[in-house]
């Protein structure tokens, strides 16, 4: 490419502006790190100065698995956008996904392998080489009988396979996938009701009535971008009837704000409420299945009046909601979030999901559609570490049973309550290896840090979970040359494996090969004459995603045993009502997710949609309660549970139950770089170790707290001023019925200065 003539230059221009570049070409060029504005006097072939190149990949910011298109210029990633070809997000992306660039270019990344020199937790790391770092770890792993735990963030696809192979080879080793936000209860509920290992696909786009029990599906529940797309479509998507959407939860979430009706139900009473609605559906004779009698018998105790008493929702409302839900076709009930985070979480979600069954929307458009098994990688729910598993791990470690802990990009120290004893557990593990890209709390306790690439620098593949009703898989390719002396997680594992001599089981030398091997299987699924693997692979890299119209047809029946046992116990709360009068409702905020957004300045500066708070934590409180306690917006309060306390400023929040206080998760990092450190408070730390016994998940909403004024003021930093319209008609409303008669002037002609308010 020494002399580019005009024709060739134009070709490059054309290739660049067409948009999608071929990523594998990059693999050859990722040898030299980028240092200057235009670092090449004679650029490599795929770089044309001034012309953007786009690479399709997979978003790694949350488990939803959206497809992304990354715009690069001169070898640098400039912008992440949704991959229009990807069925999950269809070209759209959430704020956290956009901010993925700041994980790549974060100034606080770990730039090279490090070894601890001195006491743990003192940041006393010294840089080392990969050879030495890997040898250090493999030397310890190679000792016969060493008990190893591999604790990874929830990964899918070939990397998950590799992790399984690796742990299997290690012998006495255990692989755990740990994610704070993993919906254990939802998996458990679906398994109990329908025997499904996968989460179903919720067809929000085509439903006409959506009843959401605590599921903040527009914010961060399962696959928010996909849900938002569906929501937008069903709300105002053409001439079909507009979606009516009811959200039931103790504190208004972002989804609650979008709802047509927001119903405040006592924490933990959502399941009872669902059963009350089910009772009403059956009582109205609207369910005619063969097992109607079983259901009627099972739900006998859930008359609206009794449910009203338990949930705090008026009986009339319950009856009305049941009528609306049963009449609207199709209607969909989803549950999660605050409804799932109680000691009766699984039962609650069983009750909620059963509503779908009762209105006959299983497998129907606008209802609940079962997903096929993933085409690559292990099944979604396997080796998922719930709270009980993590607690057991901590206990085992404290007894000295665990010799080596390998942590891959997960941060249990931050996302586990203090009560889990994980910090003490870490202290008793002789060797902790972290593969994290950032100095998070857990990594700060490590002995060896083998820093991994960010997802924008690594090879990977993914099967979105929950799926979209048919088989989908996507490839994640490096979009820029690695910035630092880091390696992808897969390559680190391969390096360890090669040191340990696992050649037979793990034959690959690079992750790219490993992924390609996995995708050969996918290629083999296609019709035999459909071309060779290389062109298939090229096509996949170009489009970033592969799909196949394979759908799961499953007979959706609920066994009598499940029906007979349906029922929701009263939720269990830790703490005495007298001493701890409030139920703490920790929620995942838009920007922070489970805390991983805290080191991204864009996310710190993204105002919380509802309170407009940036850079910090806050406690949401009902205005009447605050008034009674003499608290004002901005007063610093101490929120104390039996497990500890945090100090946060009060934010008066108009849509939260009077005896519930809510706190966002994600801030309160002791580590994780300049943007995250020492900012706000972490409510997870003070959670009581209450679990849902069925799924073993931590009941994050089961802690009672007291709120005591400190007498100091430290207002949360807000970008918003007054949040009432004062009759100014800034946001205008119209009723569905008045649409037909009301008509404004044509806007593109000229002024619509006078308009009926």
């Amino acid at each position, binding site marked *: 490419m020494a002399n580019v003539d005009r024709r060739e230059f134009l070709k490059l221009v054309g290739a660049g*502006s067409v948009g999608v570049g071929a990523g594998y070409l990059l693999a050859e060029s990722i040898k030299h790190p980028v240092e200057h504005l235009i670092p090449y006097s004679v650029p490599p072939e795929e770089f044309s100065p001034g012309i953007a190149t786009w690479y399709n990949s997979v978003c790694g910011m949350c488990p939803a698995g959206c497809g992304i298109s990354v715009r690069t*210029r001169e070898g640098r990633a*400039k*912008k992440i*956008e949704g991959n229009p070809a990807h069925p999950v997000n269809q*070209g*759209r*992306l959430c704020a956290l996904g*956009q*901010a993925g660039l*700041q994980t*790549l*270019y*974060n*100034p606080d990344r770990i730039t090279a392998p490090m070894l601890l020199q001195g006491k743990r937790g003192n940041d006393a790391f010294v840089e080392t080489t990969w050879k030495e770092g890997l040898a250090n770890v493999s030397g310890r792993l190679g000792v016969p009988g060493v008990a190893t735990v591999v604790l990874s963030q929830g990964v899918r696809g070939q990397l998950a396979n590799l992790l399984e192979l690796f742990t299997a080879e290690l012998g006495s080793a255990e692989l755990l996938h740990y994610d704070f936000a993993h919906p254990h209860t939802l998996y458990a509920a679906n398994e109990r009701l329908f025997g499904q290992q996968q989460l179903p696909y919720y067809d929000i786009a085509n439903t006409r009535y959506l009843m959401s029990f605590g599921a903040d599906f*527009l*914010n961060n529940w399962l696959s*928010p971008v996909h849900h*938002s*797309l569906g*929501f*937008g479509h069903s*709300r*105002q998507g053409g001439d079909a009837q507009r979606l009516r959407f009811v959200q039931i939860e103790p504190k*208004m979430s*972002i989804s609650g*704000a979008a709802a*047509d009706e*927001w119903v405040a139900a006592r924490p933990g009473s959502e399941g009872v409420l669902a059963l009350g609605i089910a009772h009403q559906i059956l009582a109205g004779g609207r369910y005619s299945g063969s097992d109607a009698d079983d259901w009627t018998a099972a739900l006998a105790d859930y008359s609206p009046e009794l449910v009203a008493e338990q949930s705090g929702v008026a009986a009339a409302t319950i009856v009305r909601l049941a009528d609306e839900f049963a009449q609207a076709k199709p209607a969909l009930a989803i549950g999660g979030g605050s409804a799932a985070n109680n000691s009766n979480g699984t039962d609650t979600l069983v009750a909620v999901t059963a509503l779908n069954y009762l209105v006959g929307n299983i497998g129907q458009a606008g209802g609940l559609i079962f997903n096929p098994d993933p085409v690559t990688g292990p099944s979604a729910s396997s080796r998922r570490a719930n709270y009980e598993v993590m607690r057991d791990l901590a206990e085992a470690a404290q007894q000295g049973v665990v010799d080596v802990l390998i942590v891959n990009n997960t941060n249990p120290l931050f996302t586990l309550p203090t009560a889990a004893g994980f910090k003490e557990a870490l202290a008793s593990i002789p060797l902790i290896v972290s593969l994290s890209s950032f100095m998070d709390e857990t990594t700060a306790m490590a002995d060896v840090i083998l820093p991994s690439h960010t997802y924008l620098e690594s090879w990977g593949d993914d099967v979105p979970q929950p799926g979209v009703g048919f088989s989908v898989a996507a490839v994640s390719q490096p979009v820029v040359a690695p910035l630092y002396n880091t390696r992808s997680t897969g390559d680190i594992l391969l390096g360890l494996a090669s040191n340990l001599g696992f050649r037979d089981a793990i034959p690959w030398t690079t992750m790219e090969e490993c992924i390609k091997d996995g995708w050969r299987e996918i290629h083999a699924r296609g019709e035999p004459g459909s071309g060779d693997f290389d062109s298939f692979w090229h096509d996949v890299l170009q489009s970033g995603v592969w799909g196949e119209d394979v759908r799961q047809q499953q007979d959706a029946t609920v066994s009598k045993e499940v029906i007979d046992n349906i029922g929701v116990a009263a939720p269990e709360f830790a703490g005495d009502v007298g001493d701890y009068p409030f139920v703490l409702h920790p929620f995942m905020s838009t920007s922070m997710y489970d805390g991983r957004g805290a080191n991204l300045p*864009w996310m*710190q*500066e*993204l*105002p919380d*949609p*509802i309170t407009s708070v*940036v850079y*910090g934590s806050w406690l949401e409180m009902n205005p009447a309660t605050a008034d009674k306690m003499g608290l004002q917006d901005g007063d610093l309060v101490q929120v104390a549970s039996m497990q500890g306390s945090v100090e946060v400023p009060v934010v008066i929040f*108009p*849509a939260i139950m*009077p005896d519930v206080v809510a706190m966002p998760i994600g801030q309160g990092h002791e580590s994780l770089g300049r943007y995250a450190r020492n900012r706000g408070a972490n409510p997870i730390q003070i959670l009581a170790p209450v679990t849902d016994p069925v799924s073993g998940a931590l009941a994050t909403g089961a802690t009672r707290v007291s709120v005591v004024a400190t007498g100091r003021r430290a207002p949360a*930093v807000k*970008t*918003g001023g007054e*949040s*009432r319209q004062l009759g100014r008609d*800034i*946001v*205008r*409303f*119209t*009723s*569905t*019925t*008045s649409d037909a008669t009301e008509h404004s002037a*044509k*806007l*593109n002609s000229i*002024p*619509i200065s006078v308009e009926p308010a």
Partner: protein
Amino acid sequence: MSFMDRFVSGWRKHRQAATDDDFDYAWTMSIDLDRCTGCGACVTACQAENNIPLVGEKELAGGREMQWIRIERYWEGEYPNAKLSFIPMMCQHCDSAPCETVCPVSATYHNQDGLNTQIYNRCIGTRSCAVYCPYEVRFFNYYDHHWPAPLDQQLNPDVTVREKGVMEKCTFCIQRIRQAKDHAKDEGRRVADGEVQPACVQTCPSEALVFGDRKDPNSNVSKSINDPRAYHVLGELNTRPSVVYLKKVDADVV
């Protein structure tokens, strides 16, 4: 043509206010409040696309946020009937923009696309445009902002990094519009509907934002702005915005 004739015809011509016909395009955005979920994806997308600086906690506390698009939220009613509405607010690209007339150095004016543009290197920082703007969508660079390395590698080379003392605001991603126009011009056609989208529209997960040319009667945005729900925020001020909002549907409102 005599001097007098030229004078008279020039006078007549320049005494006419510009209409849509005088501009190449009339870029318009519609925002469906019934779809908007307030998720903030547009805000971050805009920050990424337009090199919007990180201002930091202290500056934000002082009310100096720098987000060309922001989500405003308005509560109605009290618990338990409290309702919350979101409304994304960005430069409305008014055809009768109050900000344009007040700038003494013509740093902001209507360009040939009918966009309200801000010429950064012409701005002297009187900040009067921000006072005159009723939508509060003009942002001033109170400081020189810095991106700690290597965050600066993300900066979009198509967009200027603004220095202290300069006003800035939403441009409808003019760099994308320009690129699309150039591309269309090379092919001797007009920019097709949907060919260009600002970063916010591009990313909006619920597809609440629609962007296009209102001079094209078949564009999506034309359909949107002819929707009976369409209205202008602060329409009573007669600023003739190019951003059209679609009313939120609320069955309880009569």
